[in-house]
């Protein structure tokens, strides 16, 4: 028994079954919720692709009936087949999207399709739909001890970061997608619209379509040019520059159709950033052979590699761009320790200490800037293709030095110099000796001012 079935409206003009999936033609499907529910029950499926003749989304009554017949909360994909050039491909693409649906994607239950005008007469009696919410994939999450950025930035305070993993409160989540855009690990998605799901749908569509309209589910009748395909998303907040670049790198056009509400407020800026990254380059570039990647920052990084993109800055950049004021940096390593994606790494090898930076891994979370005691880092949100191509670069290095007394490896010179400035005369501040040797040397020197002061106070140096 297949978990996914296809129900096609009898007026949609599709007679052939979809390969590999049980397909049933339902009389007047668009207006026959009960018949659709009976068909789904008979097939025993929990996910369903609807081929509709006069709509692009299922009515609340149809969704409600299918839900009662066993459809999973985000297991309904509707496809408008009116005037479609390749209806079977549209259905197959929607089925591919459902095929990647995570079992148990939660949502916020909706009791009534629309506000009841007379609450005095009727009350909602059943969950008839689900609103998408942010969903955390624990297998990708870095864990609360390393990163709880989602909890810190959630404007609705819907994410608690106290446990081992952040917890999303579905009842409070507004699906604004802010956490999704900022998660350094790409561990969050909106229910029913995980990047892997949308990628599976897009890959099928891009085989045939000249372009794709990515539309918010709340957008009213998005215009779809002839030869293009429509992909509906819970919010355009999930669309990043990388999505646009990945599609364009395959020689296809892409447009965003927002609803005009807050959930789509960033769409124009995201499109603008993608256009700036593309610059004057001509399309198509050599067709990528890898599968469509929509998880950031990999999506943007990978696409920039294909197109030889232009540097571009913008708040919607999935990448952060760090600049180091090397005269301030002490190579203390606090930034590298705090970096959740290892974009900053402090290498302590035989030759010395090196602070390395990989732009491709920097998601601009800002933790490094926050912890740097010397205020030596500047962060912008930008994509720098040249820096991406260079991979991991050295920001600052210091050669290995040994204690002149015992031969032990010394901390990097910038750090010892800074300690010397901050704590003049304290053991370890001698630039040529390790802490132990410097302490012994200090003990042998009777005129050491701080040692004398401690002795006066009766403190034990040990």
């Amino acid at each position, binding site marked *: 028994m297949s978990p996914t079935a296809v129900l096609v409206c009898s007026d949609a003009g599709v007679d052939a079954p979809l390969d590999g999936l049980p397909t049933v033609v339902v009389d007047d499907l*668009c*207006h*026959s*919720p*009960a*018949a659709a529910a009976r068909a789904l029950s008979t097939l025993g499926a929990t996910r369903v692709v609807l081929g509709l003749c006069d709509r692009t989304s299922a*009515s*609340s*009554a149809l969704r*409600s*009936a299918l839900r009662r017949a066993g459809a999973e909360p985000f297991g309904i994909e509707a496809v408008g087949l009116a005037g479609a050039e390749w209806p079977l491909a549209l259905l197959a693409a929607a089925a591919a999207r459902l095929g990647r649906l995570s079992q148990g994607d939660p949502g916020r239950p909706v*009791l*009534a*399709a*629309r506000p*009841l*005008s*007379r*609450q*005095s*007469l*009727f*009350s*909602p*009696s*059943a*969950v*008839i739909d689900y609103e998408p919410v942010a969903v955390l994939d624990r297998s990708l999450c870095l864990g609360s001890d390393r990163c709880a950025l989602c909890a810190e930035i959630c404007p609705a305070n819907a994410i608690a970061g106290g446990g081992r993993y952040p917890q999303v409160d579905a009842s409070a989540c507004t699906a604004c997608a802010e956490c999704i855009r900022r998660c350094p690990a790409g561990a969050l998605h909106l229910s029913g619209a995980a990047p892997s799901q949308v990628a599976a749908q897009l890959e099928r569509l891009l085989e045939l379509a000249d372009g794709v309209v990515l539309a918010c589910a709340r957008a009213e009748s998005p215009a779809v040019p002839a030869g293009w395909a429509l992909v509906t998303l819970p919010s355009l907040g999930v669309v990043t520059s990388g999505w646009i670049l990945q599609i364009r790198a395959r020689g296809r056009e892409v447009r965003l159709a927002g609803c005009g509400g807050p959930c789509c407020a960033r769409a124009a800026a995201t499109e603008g950033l993608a256009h700036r990254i593309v610059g004057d380059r001509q399309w198509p570039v050599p067709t990528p052979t890898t599968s469509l990647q929509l998880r950031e920052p990999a999506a943007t990084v990978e696409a920039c590699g294909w197109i030889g993109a232009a540097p571009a800055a913008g708040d919607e950049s999935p990448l952060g761009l760090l600049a180091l004021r090397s005269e301030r940096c002490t190579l203390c390593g606090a930034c590298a320790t705090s970096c959740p994606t290892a974009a900053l790494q402090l290498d302590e090898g035989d030759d010395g200490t090196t602070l390395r930076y990989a732009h491709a891994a920097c998601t601009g979370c800002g933790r490094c800037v926050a912890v740097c005691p010397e205020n030596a880092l500047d962060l912008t949100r930008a994509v720098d293709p040249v820096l991406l191509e260079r991979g991991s670069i050295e920001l600052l290095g210091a050669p290995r030095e040994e204690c002149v007394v015992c031969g032990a490896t010394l901390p990097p010179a910038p750090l010892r110099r800074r300690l010397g400035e901050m704590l003049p005369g304290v053991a370890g501040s001698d630039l040529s000796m390790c802490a132990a040797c410097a302490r012994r040397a200090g003990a042998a020197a009777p005129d050491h001012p701080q040692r004398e002061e401690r002795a006066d106070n009766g403190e034990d140096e040990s």
Partner: protein
Amino acid sequence: MNGAPQLLSHWWSRPVDEELAWWRDTWEAAVATDEALGTCLVDELRAAAETGGDGLLEEYERLLVGPGQVPCNPYESLWRAGQPRLEQGRLMAAVAGEVTQVYGDLGLRVGEGAHELPDHVAVEWEALAYAVDSGADEQAERLLRDHLAEWMPGFCAAVGAETTHPFYRTLAQITSAWTAALAE
């Protein structure tokens, strides 16, 4: 035309102050619906409501509420012909269960605060309004064709014959005409 079920639901509700205020706010929309459905009765209904307002509640209760036997029972169960003998003349017959099933399909149930049976005239019209607005065409069809269109003609004829108030006489005419127009 979409507004017709909503208007009828309110006009067949108990004419207390809250309802009368709703009527006042929606006369213009009612005229537009009236024209769309090809009837010309709303102006007359409005005049009757405004000039005969004092006796509205009394007439509503005499016709539809009681106490005791009422001349025009507002429940579908009592108006359906061809029912099994054991159901004839009784409240909550099988049709009440049928409309409750339709409400369930819409994700609704009659609220406790309604203090009304599911096959009351105002409740059925309200459910039809919700179904139409929600795009639940199948449920709307069932409510209209299998229920309201079945008993509104008899019910309206009884109200028209029994009432002494111009509002309810005109409302019976409008309801009958609109039901026929919607069911076409």
